[in-house]
């Protein structure tokens, strides 16, 4: 590495972190991209399609993942978290913890032999726990780096490591590349960086506490992200819309808006992406099944982004999606586990019911718990909703000079906004570093 090369640390390898990395890498900065999961990709990797174009999410993301992986200026630190940070002039010293993968990243070729042999089944978090994977696994099929990882807590060999007799270890036996390394341990190391971008993303609100919706109580009430995996061809049901109660295909789906949002008892803010992502779900449902009837229950229909109104029109005109201005009071079920929605029609103020085969709750985007921890470590101020606090005239700055933020850790936002923010943060980083250097260029 050139002595004069400046380093930037980007925390979070979702679409925002990836975009910042690529921009800064292209500008000639060395980028350390920190990702806590085994692969980069973030939420976008979980999505089936993106709106309003309905292009396949992973298809447009995959080239970016590879660009990141192959970029000479970008280094991906997977399974890594930030532990501590200290000031270092105008820059920072960051202490990191890399969790043991138990698989050698350089030798694994992702052939999958080990997965076949592994006897331990584990709920797959990437697939929203709707299917099981093995204790040795690739985070998701198109994931980058494309190497296996072993989940320490579930691995038979590692759990019984201290016993006299060797237990399991089939993966290691079968691996033709000697990639399995049970001796790996978690490691601490320190990196210096001249600026930091926080891109730690967001989470989906867990609607279990809103017991009136019956999530977890009724099998045919699931969340938006769960549905996203369900309609994905590489998801748990291979793209078949399947009721979890009886594995049949529903003909009638209700989408409930503002679950855990615009509600002072949970999150008072508007999650801003749900009206349109439910519309996407409804359109895709009809594409999966020509007879599918979808109804979206909403309070205000919020679709201000480019092409979004047209998208909704298309949903209504071409895909027969019904929009009902209504607030759900309660969801119950009949003897066949069909959900019944009891709702107030907000146009007429009448109380009505509707029986459907399946209910999808459009749950709010919320800050991740790890973002909170990370903000504390970095000293970054959060707003009243626990998103990173930014201001109207400096939308990608944090309160700490040299630390910037982008993507949904700043608040609920869709992919284009995340990408815009991400490039924006990259520009501000470059400005911060070059001004520090004395500015003049060329």
């Amino acid at each position, binding site marked *: 590495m050139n002595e004069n090369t400046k380093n930037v640390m980007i925390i979070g390898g979702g679409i925002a972190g990836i975009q910042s990395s690529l921009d800064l890498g292209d500008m000639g900065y060395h980028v350390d991209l920190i990702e806590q999961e085994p692969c980069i990709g973030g939420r976008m990797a979980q999505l089936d399609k993106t709106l309003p174009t309905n292009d396949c999410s992973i298809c447009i993301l995959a080239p970016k993942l590879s660009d990141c992986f192959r970029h000479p200026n970008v280094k991906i630190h997977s399974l890594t978290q930030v532990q501590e940070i200290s000031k270092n002039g105008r820059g920072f010293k960051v202490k990191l913890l890399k969790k043991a993968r138990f698989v050698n990243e350089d030798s694994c070729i992702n052939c999958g032999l080990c997965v076949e042999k592994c006897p331990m089944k584990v709920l797959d978090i990437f697939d929203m726990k709707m299917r099981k994977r093995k204790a040795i696994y690739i985070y998701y099929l198109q994931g980058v780096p494309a190497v296996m990882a072993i989940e320490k807590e579930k691995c038979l060999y590692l759990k019984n490591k201290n016993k006299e007799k060797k237990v399991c270890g089939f993966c290691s036996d079968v691996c033709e590349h000697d990639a399995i390394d049970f001796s790996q341990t978690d490691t601490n190391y320190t990196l210096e960086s001249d600026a930091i971008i926080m891109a730690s993303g967001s989470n989906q609100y867990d609607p279990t506490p809103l017991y009136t919706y019956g999530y977890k109580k009724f099998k045919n009430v699931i969340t938006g992200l769960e549905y996203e995996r369900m309609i994905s061809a590489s998801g748990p049901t291979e793209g078949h819309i399947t009721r979890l109660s009886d594995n049949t295909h529903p003909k009638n789906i209700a989408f409930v808006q503002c679950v855990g949002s615009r509600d002072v008892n949970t999150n008072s803010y*508007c*999650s*801003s992406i749900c009206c349109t992502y439910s519309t996407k779900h409804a359109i895709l449902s009809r594409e999966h099944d020509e007879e599918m009837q979808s109804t979206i229950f909403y309070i205000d229909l919020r679709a*201000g982004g*480019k092409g979004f109104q047209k998208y909704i029109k298309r949903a209504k005109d071409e895909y027969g999606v019904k929009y009902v201005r209504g607030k759900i009071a309660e969801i119950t079920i009949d003897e066949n586990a069909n959900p019944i929605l009891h709702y107030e029609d907000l*146009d007429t103020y009448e109380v009505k019911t509707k029986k459907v085969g399946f209910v999808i709750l459009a749950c709010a985007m919320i800050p991740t718990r790890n973002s909170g921890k990370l903000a504390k470590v970095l000293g970054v101020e959060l707003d009243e909703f626990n998103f990173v606090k930014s201001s109207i005239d400096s939308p990608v700055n944090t309160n700490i000079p040299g630390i910037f933020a982008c993507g949904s850790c700043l608040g609920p936002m869709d992919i284009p906004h995340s990408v815009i923010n991400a490039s924006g943060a990259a*520009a501000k980083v470059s*400005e911060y570093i070059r001004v520090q250097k004395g500015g003049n260029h*060329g």
Partner: protein
Amino acid sequence: MDEIRIGVFVCHCGTNIAGFVDVASIEEYVKTLPHVVFTQRNLYTCSETGLLAIKNGIKENNLNRVIVAACTPRTHEPLFRGICSEMGLNPYFFEFVNIREQCSWVHQKEKEKATSKARDLVRMGVARAALLEPLEKFQIDVEPSTLIIGGGISGMSAASVLANQGFHVIIVEKDTELGGQLRNLHRLYPGDMDSQKMLSIREEILKNPKIEVHISSKIKNIDGYIGNFDITVLKGEKEIKFGVGTIIVATGTDVLKPKGLYNYDGKKVITQKELELLFKENQFNSKNIVMIQCVGSRNEERPYCSSICCMTAMKNARVIKEKNPDAEVFILNRDIYTSGTYQEEFYREARKMGVIFTRYNESKLPQVTEDSVIYYNESLKEDVEIKYDLVVLSTPLVTYHEESKKLSKMLKVPLDEFGFFLEAHVKLRPVDFSNDGIFVCGTCKWPANVPESISQGYAAASRVTRIISKDTFTVEGATAWIDQEKCIACEICLKKCPYKAITRDEEDRVIVRTVLCKCCGVCSTTCPEHAIDIRHYKDNQVESQITALLEEGEWIE
């Protein structure tokens, strides 16, 4: 010439292809085609695993042509070409066969026929691959400077970030001063910041020695290409010419004047913009105010949501309530658009302050009479009358259509149906154009609020910095080429070339300036003497595909 060794990688794309095309039979078939020495199937060829397989395939089999039969070249070609380059193979020896968008996805109910079609497509690809020629990309010098068209908040944000990094920036503003729509605003949400405070960025811009500002100026002409654009600006009567490396389009939008709608007269029935002017000049003294949302938007003519009007109405309603808590403010709306964290809070606060929100239906628009607004209340199922002394219409942001059109022609970039600039990709390239070296930010792309416009300005600056922080830019190698033996210098091509890439050289020969050539091929088809060929889309390459399709192999019977 070396022996041609073609490797074909057939992608399952999970079940996207394999579910509708018999990929195993495709692989078997490919093995029988001339020059094919290696075949493989991959679950996801674009994954790192798939790419590694290609690399190994090239290395172990000494491949000098690579074919991937998978999805559309429009998204993945650069990736696979990159892999070839990495392995020391000329990237133009890569050939993409699309058996997903063009086959498996569109013939989902006819597996056999889809498979047969895929066989044909791959055969055509193999025939073409055998005739591919290596091409060199070349480097062009890049001037480390940017032209920013439009001096509103978005353009100024981009300018400040770029200039602070030491790059030369030229702002061309058609108005008599910088600031754009920001000048018309009274306060900004959230936090009720005074727009004047944000406008102070103008002084910074004007003081910055790296920024050159031309007010009252228009773009007259744009020539050249990434790294070396030649700009002609008309400043009053005077023509100014200069060169820049990159261009940012930040021309902004206007606010719709609702002529003929709701008895708009600019006095008793005004727009939000006019209301803010009243605030600024301390001229406001109305007590019964009715605001109507979606005036001239979300209708047949302008089906889009302008996305900032609900917040603007609320912001102004709050100002009224602060001035006079007894004033009555109604906001007649269709859907309240306050998406995001603080926006929703803002809405809640406005309601607490006593602003009354009430809904009207698009099929029964409110009526504005001499002294009252009548609207149909859905829950009461009857018309309701509200007395007013001021009606404020929330009108959408609209494009400067004619000017945008002119600019889009000069830049050769597209507009959408409403006159907004069309970016390269809505999701992943939101501030890029598909043409190299030209970027877009702010409301000329789509309605946006102030923080969004600033972010977009920064984003455009980032995309520009990627290019101008390096001395050179790499240009595609696929271009037109003139066979001097055949050329009779009739100059038909010279007139046809949309990029003025064909000229006479010092020796008076007709030649192609390859940096300018974008490979459209018009010159070739109109050349009487067949003297022009298009590299990578050569006559013999296309003909080989035709022959392979029609004279070899089977066809669905």
